């Protein structure tokens, strides 16, 4: 009995433990490419799967890092700066003040690795007042077997600016093991808007440890979308957002699918520090055999703040789905709510659609597609097709 308890508890552990042993912390360097048309077509295809298009069409700028090297960075707009973080530190003396301010290097072993053995990362900044029309894309890619990649990213949306960033993370098809650590610090200044869409498509045994801090000033908005549909060894992340000004807004959407053998421990923490701050965390998770922990924490520290958390999980046939919504109110006059549901597809819903003439398989896929259909602003167009494909692939798990 005791043994069973321990096994069950295992699903909820905070996975801050050490990485698996045996990773290497350096990779062969890759030469910088002025033009992306010389990229290996196979790699370009992997990048496109996560929303990164080497043609740069409909993009304001591009950053690509392969293993430990910046492969390319450039932008077609004078409103935005994009470059590797080491070059950015040389360019802007002040940038060092933005490093390690929102994420402590002593947070855990992963952050210490990133401080001690840094491997680049991106710097993206929208200039004051700039309305960057097309999204900026960035890609973090691992091609070398057994590499432990540690990147440090800084994004600054200056006052009154607006920018959308699509970050795609992927590994080469053949890759078996690897570790990705990404320390990210996002600064959303007064009345600025940052849209951040992150699409993960890692390998089946890759460990992924993003460590993110977001600071939003008065009137600023951050919208973060996270999509992980494909197998990954284990993922653990819980970005912390500080709504540090009046009427600051944070919205988090995530779409997660966990196939067998996959462990996803994801969540968001939002600290509402000033009156009028608003936050929304929405997650839709489906396990087809893997383990998903969907966390959400809101901490209301000022009157007149508003927050809503929504965690919905489906277990198609087997797997573990653990929803942990948490609300903290420290003053009166806060308005916080949450909604969490874990279960299988309701037979009534399936039969309801069958009564309209849909066969069982079509009814199930229609419901699953609807379940994953969070209204996400600015997703790359190919993603809807990707979701469709994952839904049809997971079909047999449901029936």
């Amino acid at each position, binding site marked *: 009995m005791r043994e069973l308890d321990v096994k069950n508890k295992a699903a909820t552990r905070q996975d801050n433990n050490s990485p698996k042993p045996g990773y290497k912390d350096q990779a062969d360097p890759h030469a910088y490419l002025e033009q992306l048309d010389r990229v290996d077509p196979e790699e370009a295809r992997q990048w496109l799967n996560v929303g990164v298009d080497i043609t740069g069409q409909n993009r304001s700028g591009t950053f690509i890092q392969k293993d430990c090297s910046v492969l390319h960075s450039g932008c077609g707009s004078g409103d935005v700066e994009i470059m590797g973080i080491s070059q950015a530190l040389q360019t802007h003396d002040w940038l060092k003040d933005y490093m390690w301010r929102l994420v402590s290097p002593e947070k855990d072993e992963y952050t210490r690795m990133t401080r001690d053995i840094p491997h680049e990362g991106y710097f993206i900044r929208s200039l004051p007042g700039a309305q960057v029309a097309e999204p900026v894309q960035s890609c973090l890619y691992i091609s070398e077997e057994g590499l432990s990649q540690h990147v440090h990213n800084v994004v600054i949306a200056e006052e009154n600016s607006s920018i959308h960033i699509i970050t795609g993370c992927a590994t080469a098809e053949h890759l078996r093991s690897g570790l990705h650590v990404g320390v990210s610090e996002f600064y959303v200044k007064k009345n600025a808007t940052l849209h951040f869409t992150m699409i993960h498509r890692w390998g089946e045994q890759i460990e992924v440890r993003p460590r993110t801090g977001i600071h939003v000033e008065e009137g600023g908005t951050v919208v973060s979308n996270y999509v992980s549909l494909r197998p990954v060894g284990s993922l653990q992340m819980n970005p912390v957002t500080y709504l540090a000004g009046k009427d600051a807004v944070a919205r988090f959407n995530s779409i997660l699918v966990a196939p067998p053998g996959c462990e996803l421990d994801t969540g968001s923490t939002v600290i509402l520090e000033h009156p009028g701050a608003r936050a929304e965390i929405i997650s839709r998770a489906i396990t087809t055999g893997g383990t998903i922990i969907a966390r959400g924490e809101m901490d209301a520290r000022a009157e007149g703040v508003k927050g809503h958390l929504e965690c919905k999980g489906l277990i198609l046939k087997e797997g573990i789905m653990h929803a942990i919504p948490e609300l903290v109110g420290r003053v009166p006059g806060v308005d916080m709510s949450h909604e969490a549901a874990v279960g299988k597809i*309701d037979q009534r819903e399936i*039969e309801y659609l069958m*009564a*309209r*003439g849909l066969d069982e398989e079509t009814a199930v896929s229609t419901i699953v*597609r609807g379940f994953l259909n969070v209204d996400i602003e600015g997703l790359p167009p190919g993603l809807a097709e990707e979701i469709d494909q994952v839904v049809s692939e997971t079909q047999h798990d449901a029936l």
Partner: protein
Amino acid sequence: MLKIEDLVVEVEGHTILNRINLEIPEGETHILFGPNGSGKSTLMMTIMGFSGYRVTSGHIWFKGEDITRMPIHERARLGIGVAFQRPPAINGLKTRDVVSLCAGQKSTNVEELAQKANFVDFLDRDLNLNFSGGEMKRSEMLQLLAQSPDLVLLDEPESGVDLENVVLLGEIINELLGRGVRQREKESAIAHRSKKSKSALVITHTGHILNYITADKGHVLYNGVLCCARNAREILQWIREYGYEECFRCAS
């Protein structure tokens, strides 16, 4: 169109319907009266083939085919459509998309149908999510308009609907069944005469809906047994005057 023979139905091991015999000829609208818990909805769910409603003996025939063991979607494709009393909400599934799905292979103009059901503003909302009672009914009727079944099963169509919307609902039902004076107004006399009306089975326990639709016959279901079949308005008068129990006593 629909013929039910000696039907016995169990739900969770309890017999709910006992030796039901019922026939609805083509083009006729039949009303099923009965107090709460008498088995009205069970009959409807069994005709549609929902799980949990076990037919232990008897048969259901539709268009000459024995559909007693047929899967739900095949019954739907054969021409049976149902409007549920409490349909489930489906997250992320837009009402517009469901209406298209209901039409199957037929080409359909969703906007036009939605105008008829006064439901255009709801097309981009998730199906049945936070709909009021009346909105759910209109959503159900809109889906049926797209599906255009030959036999329509309506479960308490007037429940939870305010007075103003009952009139609209009656009009939609008449449109669906190809009946009523307003339908007659829209078409030439010849077109109207040559078009066959659809069949329907309408569940009601208040009878209010009879003010808006034309019924050809009424049946009373009491404790799982069909105990009376005659003019629907006459039955309603009896029930109003003497209650269901007396109605049952008279028949037996």
